[in-house]
Each structure stands twice: as C-alpha cells, then as structure tokens.
C-alpha cells in the first residue's frame, strides 16, 4: 500500500501549540488596535469612524477605540492612518466577554466582572478538560470559517492529540461552536441544537460575523451575530479566525489556557 510510506514522508509536522508558542504566526494579521502613545488618545477630531466598514472604530474625543468584535481586519484604517492604527500577529485573541474585545482595554470594573465569568466557566468545564466533544453549527457563515475549523484536524494542528473531537450528535457534545452572522432561518435549528446538548455545555462563537454580524449586521436576513440567540461563553474574533485562534477559543472554553487579560495560565490540563 503505497500510501503508508507516503504518510511517513514528511516526518512530524504537528505544531507544539499550546505547550510552546508556534513559530508560524508572524507575518500575518491577527488583530488591529489603536496605537498606545498615549493609550488611544488622538489630538484632534478626525473622520476616523467612516474609514471602517463595520463601525468597529469609535471616536469619543479624545479617545479612539477599536472593537475587535466588529473588526473584519480589512486593514483599511492601518493603511490610511498608520499614525493611529496598528496591526499585529496576535493569535490568542479569544475572550470571555465582549468588553474585553475593545481596545484600549477594559477598566477595573470590567476586570472584576471578567474574573467572575472566568470562575463560573471553570466550574462548569472542570469535567471536560481531558476530552471534549464539539458540535459545529453554521448559522450563516461565508464558508471560510468551516475551512478553518476543518483545518484543526489536519496533521499540522491535529487537535485529537489534545483530546478534542468533533461529533455529529448534539447529545454527545460539550461545546457548541457556532459560525456565521445569525441568518434568520438558522435561528430555529441553532437553538434546537443547543437545547439538545446535555449540561454542562459551553458556547463558542467563532468569527466576527458570529460576534456582531460583521458586514451583515444591518441585514434584514440576520440577527447581527448569534449572541442574541444563544448564551455565548467564549468569543473568537477574526474574519475568519485562524485555526490557532479557534484552538485558543476551544482551550479557553475548557480552562486549559487563560484569556489575554487574565494573566498567565490558570490550570494545566
């Protein structure tokens, strides 16, 4: 069987993430934020908001903020105003609350609220840390998120090594991984899938479309993201999020890694 030897040809290609940072995320865009000198402040009123196709940029004199829950990483702001906006290759972008997606970051009140969310999530997912089953539902994606989720099973990410499996049946699922802007006709099937899952369950919304509707936010046919239909626990921005970001979101959901504002690792799996 020639495929057997072919399979051995490339040696080990699997990333060592999350144990070690992967060398790959570098030249590409993971998140966009205002420059911090001083944090988010701009010296004059500017027509910055109209640069953005999704309303992710807010200007409240003198502070400019970017909401990554709306940002589709189009780079228009970075290209037009490199003095104000900057892009980086950050891939660990998943968070537990929409307020943590806004940069400059949340104030101390938000920090306290986040800590509560974190503890609550950890309590719910304690049992899932060694093996977790994911049910994916597309609620009106553009098709790219599905490719990136499917990539998690390729030999490079190979998520089975981390005890992460995809399942067809909602009855066996611990995590509901939702993509898409929340198309009206998918709301019913989406909620039914959620209800069919046993507790404890966690909802991960993957992609800017799922978080806010992205460019489809104002459409007659969408609910502007899935947060209106489901209690979302983990938010993964990106258009689409890269496989690393998706993996970060899943690991965050089961408490194996921490969110960015939460400091270092909280638990080893």
């Amino acid at each position: 069987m020639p495929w057997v030897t072919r399979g051995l040809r490339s040696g080990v290609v699997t990333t060592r993430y999350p144990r070690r940072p992967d060398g790959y995320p570098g030249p590409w865009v993971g998140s966009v934020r205002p420059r911090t000198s001083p944090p988010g402040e701009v010296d004059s009123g500017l027509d910055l908001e109209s640069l953005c196709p999704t309303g992710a940029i807010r200007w409240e004199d003198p502070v400019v903020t970017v909401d990554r829950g709306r940002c589709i990483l189009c780079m228009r702001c970075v290209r037009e105003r490199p003095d104000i906006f900057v892009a980086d290759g950050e891939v660990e972008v998943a968070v537990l609350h929409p307020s943590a997606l806004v940069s400059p970051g949340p104030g101390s009140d938000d920090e306290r609220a986040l800590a509560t969310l974190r503890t609550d999530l950890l309590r719910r997912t304690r049992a899932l840390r060694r093996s977790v089953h994911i049910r994916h539902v597309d609620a009106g994606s553009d098709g790219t998120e599905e490719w990136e989720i499917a990539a998690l099973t390729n030999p490079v990410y190979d998520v089975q090594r981390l005890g992460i499996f995809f399942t067809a049946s909602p009855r066996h699922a611990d995590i509901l991984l939702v993509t898409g802007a929340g198309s009206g006709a998918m709301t019913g099937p989406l909620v039914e899938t959620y209800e069919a899952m046993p507790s404890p369950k966690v909802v991960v919304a993957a992609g800017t479309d799922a978080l806010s509707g992205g460019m489809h936010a104002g459409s007659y046919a969408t609910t502007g993201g899935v947060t209106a239909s489901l209690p979302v626990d983990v938010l993964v921005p990106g258009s689409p999020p890269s496989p690393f970001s998706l993996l970060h979101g899943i690991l965050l959901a089961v408490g194996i890694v921490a969110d960015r504002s939460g400091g270092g690792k909280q638990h080893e799996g």
Partner: protein
Amino acid sequence: MRSPSPTVLGVEELPGRLAELLGSGGRLAGVFVDEAPDERLRLVVVGADAGGLSISAGYMARDDRHYPSLSAVTPAAAWYEREIQDLYGLSAEGGAPQEPLLLHLAPGSPRPRPGLGSHLEAAPAPGESAPGASRPGAAEIRSDDGQVPAEVTGPGVFTLSYGPVRSGVFESVGYLLETPGEDLPSVRARVHYKHRGIEAGFTGLDVGHGVLLAERVEGVASVAHAIAFCQAVETIAGVSPPSAAELSRLWHAEIERVANHLDSMLRHTEAAGQAVAYARLSFHREALMRIRAMASGHRFSRGVVVPGGVSGPPMCDPGELLRSLEKLREALEADLELLMSTPSFLDRLRRTGVIPCELAALYGALGPLGRGSGHGVDVRASRPYSAYERLGIRVSGARDEGDALARQHVRVEEIAESMRLAVVAAEKLRELATGSTPDWCLPIDPGITGEALGSVEAPQGELITWVRATGGRLRRVKPRSASFHNFALFSSAFPKDIFTDFAFVEGSFGISIAGVAG
C-alpha cells in the same frame, strides 16, 4: 475587459430573445432585476455565446408584477425566477408554480428588493403589505421545517429530511430526499437557511467598502469575487489596473483555485476512507493557506484586490514565495498522481453523480462541473482578463463521461495548470521586485456613476458581477456565482445513485452554499 452594454427591450420580448440565443448555440448566464437609470424597472438577462456576454434588459411597465416566463424557454432560468420571486415579489407568468428558494417569508410580507428606489415600495402589489414597512425582520424569516409537497409518490416511498445541521463541519444546507429505500429518485436542495441578504447589503456602500462585502459573498472564492467586482468598477471608471497588479491578482486567483479544488478532493478522500490521502492533501492545503498568508497577511488573500489594482506588493520576499511554491508544487503533483492510480478511490467516483452532456449543455453548466460533462466554458481562455493573455493559459479539454470521476480528473489537471501559472507569476513578481518600484494601484474617481458587468473564472466556474453606481455609491450589486447556477443541476445527479454516494456527488459539485444562498 470590455463590458457589454444592455440592449433595451420590452419585457415581453425577452423569451423570444432568449430562444434565439439558445437556438444559435448560446446559453443563459444569468437573470436579475435592477432599476434602470430612468428609474423604471427592468429584468436583465445575461446570455453568452462564442462572441462573449450579451445583456438584454426588458423594461417593465410601472407597477407591473409579472413578466413572461423564461423557464418555459429553458429550465436553466427556473432558479433565477424563484430568486426574483423571493427578493422582489415579481412572478413569472406561464411557468410552473415556484417554491421559495432563498427566502421563506410569510405571505404578504414586504420584500427586500435590493437596488430598487422608493417608487416600487409606494405601489405594493395586491396581497403585499403597506408601503413604509420596506424590509422583513430576521424574525419573520421562517426556517420552514414544515411540510413540502412530495414530488415522488409510489409504494414504500418515504421522505427524509437531511440537514440543515450537517454531520461534520460543513455549511448549513437542507436536503429533502424522497426514497423507496436505497435509490434516490428525488433530491431537493434547500439553501435558504444561510440567506444573509448580501445583495441588499451593497446598496449605499462606497466601492472601497463594496469590495470587502464582495469578498464575503462566497468566502472561499474571495479573490474571484473581488476581481469580478473590481473589473466592473474599473470599467465604469475607465481605469485599467497596472500590469503588476494584474500579475498579483492572477497569482492569488490561481492559488485560490487550487485550495478549492483540494477541498473537493478532501471531501472525496474522507468519504472514501482514504485516511492517509486525506491527511496528505489537508497538509498541502494548509501549506497553501500559509503561502497565501505570507504573501498577503490573510489566509484567504482578503484585502489584496481593491478597485484600481491591488493594495500593495507581496508582503514577503518574492524569492521565498517562489521557493515555497515550487516545493509545494512538487509534493502535490506526486500525491495527486498516486491518488489517481488508487483503484479503490477511483471506483467510488466512477459512474457516480452522472450529469449527461446534453443536460449540462441545456443548463449551461459552469466550471469543472461543465467541463466534466463536455461543456468547456473557461473565462480565462474565452474572455481573458488580468494577466492570462500575457502568461498564456493552457485549458485542458472537456471530458464527456459526466461523472464525479470526470470532474475529479478536470480538477487534477487544473491544479497542475494553476500551479504552473502561479510559479510563472511569482517569477515575474520577483523580477519586478528587483527593478524600479511599479505602480500597484490607480485611483478611482470617488464620484463614479454608471453600470457594468465583470466576469472571471472562479474556482467554481464563471462568475459574473453586475455593478451600478451613482455618485460613487453602489446602487445595485448582483454577484451571480457559478455555485448558484450549477446547484440547480444537483437534483438531476441522482437517478442511478444510492445513498452512500451522496458525499461524492456533493463533493464533486464543489458548491459553496454561501455563494448560492446570498
């Protein structure tokens, strides 16, 4: 590329026109509704023949809610009529009654009517609700899991509803299977679950934001959609993108094609239980996505194509780009060669999902689907754009078996040609990097007004995008994906197949549901 300008007719003349076109060997490429510059309503029929694309615009009388059926002339028009019924509430007269396709709205709901001004809303049709309430809310859109009338009746026939939530990581789509057991006499695809109202979303955007939405119509073909949209905008603006930009566009488009063709093969190998082949091909696709990210900062090359050219030079060292590409090309070629000589794999595709050549011609099937059934349309060769003419494209001949295996063969050959083109383009981009700094983008007049059609060969087949703008704002954008056009043929692919073949038929069609549902 030159965009054809519309021939103005009365709407009643359209069926005759269409019959004439088909009679002389042409095909129907698309039908859509738009407002004319004089604010009258027109039904636009895009045809194609050896001479290229042609546009016939049939003007409708004000307040008219009906037009003469085009599906009575060719079945290829049926899905377009259903779409128009759903989005505009206009119906075809003299054809068969039509099931909703994209939008299941309660009777009497207002229709979204992308691209139309207020004059139509001021005159609602009988049975439609009052003006003012111009758009349905998402809550009014029904998932319609209720009863759909059976098409096939007979002893022991039962109806199986499959989807919209799939078993596996796939886009949502529903299938209604009517079967007496193993055979599949009827398969009806239900695509409305994913309808996002894309076309209405374009209205009012400037062209810079418009291209971002175009990239999201059918995300896996972001580059193709962006090029088709920009072509139309550039035609309106009278701008030809600089040659360096054309090279870069071609490079990204060909890499995108390979990624999509590999997706079809991933589905096949997974369904056939070819675990090692699946792992190898998914590894190659990952390599491909990383090469794209290296060059553009985005794994789907988003943000590269902009009106007037591309957003900038490749983001990485062109020499490195070339090296990674050549390495991948070699590995891919070797694995595809082995795949195509693995009998247990080929057996699953042979005589599966047959679309006979006559049927493909009748529908004007596009892309690998058409080319696997004797219908060799390829925009890159017949109406060259970007740098295809300059680099020279070798189009592989059409095959006439019409089965999933024929489509697989077509894709394997196309991957080889796409990789060759990508390498040649990368070499040229490297030469550019050593010379003086070339232009990557030309300015587009911010107040452009006009209308034009762009067309490219997307991985799924011919894509045409209609753009109308006034004062720099988009009024109507109609992307007609090959996925939409081809998917109408899906239900014809099953007469000889059993349930276990479903995954192969679906994989070999290579449809993006987002591109169908809009």
